């Protein structure tokens, strides 16, 4: 009897860690899909972090004033979209350096959110905590409680699959959509072509700039959703630099997944799992190895990305024209 209880407890711990993995991976998935579109079209997007942070602030602010998570989502998407247009204006229209532009946006947003937050709320740069409405809440899938008594699967269904908010489900549903859009539509073919060989696309009479703008804008929308998730679904207010590098981890996941939707999803889940695992084992004495310093696990995504980039595990080959502004020959 007691053995079964321990087994159940272990199973529950595993499920809870995986559940945290899902919650921590969601913004990574959304941001990585944003980066995927942008980079597949040939525009590097270091600014994922900044766009998400701006979206965090916008959604928390609008949710505070209106109490509607959907209006908050809309505002966040609009803000993130307009930042992506600034990025497009600098790098596509004016052929500016894509990295410099992304860095500029990240720095600009990290300061601007605090200044606006201080002006509007006077709470040290935070937005007031949301109480009650204004947030996206967990959805219990049908039958979660009914199936609870079923051994193993019941807990799996209740803890892992059910009980997330709508943005989580949307993020994971998005991946096949991105895959389909990129690999099975005319638009996707053109986006990929413009990231590999913009000249060929131009010769075929299709606007390189137009395609890149559209790809960058899709990225803006997705970053807006990611920021909304972080601020008003995962948390309940905006705090200083609350994205905490998620944009960069998403970028790492994008590279680690070699710019392909499903492999990118897997990398996001892996990096999310590492974060969840680090949280769970903090200060816990494990058998054999003792207490593993959390920092070592937190460093793993960065280390893995560096090792991959160095070509020691497979080869990450970016879209050929990525990072290069397209200059039409005259």
């Amino acid at each position, binding site marked *: 009897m007691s053995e079964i209880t321990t087994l159940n407890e272990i199973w529950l711990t595993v499920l809870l860690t995986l559940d945290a993995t899902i919650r921590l991976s969601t913004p990574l998935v959304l941001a990585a899909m944003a980066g995927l579109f942008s980079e597949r079209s040939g525009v590097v997007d270091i600014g994922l972090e900044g766009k998400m942070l701006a979206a965090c602030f916008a959604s928390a602010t609008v949710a505070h004033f209106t109490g509607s998570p959907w209006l908050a989502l809309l505002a966040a998407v609009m803000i993130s979209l307009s930042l992506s247009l600034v990025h497009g204006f*600098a790098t596509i229209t*004016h052929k*500016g350096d894509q990295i*410099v532009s992304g860095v500029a*946006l990240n*720095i*600009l947003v990290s300061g601007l959110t605090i200044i606006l937050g*201080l002006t509007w709320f006077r709470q040290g*740069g935070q937005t007031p905590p949301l109480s009650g409405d204004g947030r996206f809440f967990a959805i219990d899938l049908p039958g979660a409680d009914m199936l609870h008594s079923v051994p193993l699967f019941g807990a799996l269904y209740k803890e892992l699959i059910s009980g997330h908010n709508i943005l989580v489900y949307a993020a994971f549903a998005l991946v096949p959509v991105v895959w389909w859009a990129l690999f099975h539509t005319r638009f996707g073919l053109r986006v990929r072509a413009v990231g590999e060989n913009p000249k060929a696309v131009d010769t075929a009479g299709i606007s390189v700039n137009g395609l890149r703008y559209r790809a960058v804008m899709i990225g803006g929308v997705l970053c807006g959703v990611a920021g909304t998730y972080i601020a008003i679904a995962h948390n309940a207010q905006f705090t200083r630099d609350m994205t905490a590098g998620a944009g960069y981890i998403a970028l790492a996941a994008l590279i680690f997944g070699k710019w392909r939707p499903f492999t990118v999803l897997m990398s996001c889940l892996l990096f999310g799992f590492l974060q969840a695992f680090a949280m769970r084992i903090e200060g816990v004495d494990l058998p054999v190895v003792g207490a593993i310093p959390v920092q070592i696990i937190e460093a793993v995504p960065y280390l893995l*990305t560096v090792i991959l980039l160095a070509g020691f595990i497979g080869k990450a080959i970016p879209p050929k024209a990525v990072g290069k502004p397209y200059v039409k020959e005259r």
Partner: protein
Amino acid sequence: MNRDTRLAWINGLLLPLLNVLTAFAATAVLFVLINVNPLEAAETLLYGAFGYSEGIGYTFYYTTNFIFTGLAVAVAFHAGLFNIGGEGQAYIGGLGAGLAVFMLFPELSPWLMIPASILGAMIFGGAWAAGPGYLQAYRGSHIVITTIMFNFLAATLMVYLLVKVLREPGQMTPQTVLFPDNAWLPFVHDILPAFGLEMERSPLNLSILLALFMCLLVWFFLWQTRWGYAIRATGRNAHAAVYGGISQKKIIVVAMCISGALAGLVGINELVGYHHRIIMNFHLGYGFGGIAVALMGRNHPFGIVIAALLFGTLYQGGAELAFEWSNISRDIVVVMQGLVILFCGALEYMYKPWLVRWLAPVQEVRS
């Protein structure tokens, strides 16, 4: 003036000036939006930065950091590399400075102790940049991504070391014990009385002389030596440089090492000069600030000193602004850095077509 001279003036002076003015104008608009009179703000800011000697000390203290990171970014830029890793290199540089101090005899003469810590900062900062440099040169990994990853690695490494390994015994704060006082770089307010001058206490220390010396050294290195030429040639046209017998791979690694070593010196100003122990996050913002400084200073040491002084002024003046207006904090400087990087960097050529059409139109050729 013929057209070529006009174009040179447009590219060399008019365009950079317009870009900086645009960034300033955008900041002024922001001030208006948050109900702060930009002129009053400028006055308060200047008073805070230069109105009294403590303020002046702080201004130059911040300037010192920005000179180091600005030079770091500029050297890499000259080799055609974008070093976003100044944050991590500065952090690890501080570790190098501190370890050098702790590993030497505590009674050692300051004349050996301080140079040793400077060397430690430069070696550690340089080594932290050498990694991404090597990976770019020999394994083709993109330097921007690797330096970003190295920033995070530096941050986690330092948390680990300060919490688990180097923490002062019996203390909760993650920081090391105090350096022995022969490893303290003298404060300017302690030196000035010897020259008959008075100054209030401030963190300003002799690192500022080191910073100015580094400006001269970087200028001499880049424009007067063979290596400097090789770096600039590689940055301008890597193919031509290789054709001219320059090893691009070697140059990438060398440029990154120098860049990282310069960024590492932030650790000297902050730790050996002021805090006198290794602390957490002393480097925050300076690495990224260096990008704005280098872009604004046109990657030239002289320009970098001017731009660093501007950002030092904003940093210290920003603190004064925060006193006067409850809705302003030093983050306003971060906003300005972002705007400078946007307009002087990413949108560098925004006005160019317009200026060229207006001031140096293509002459019609009559047949």
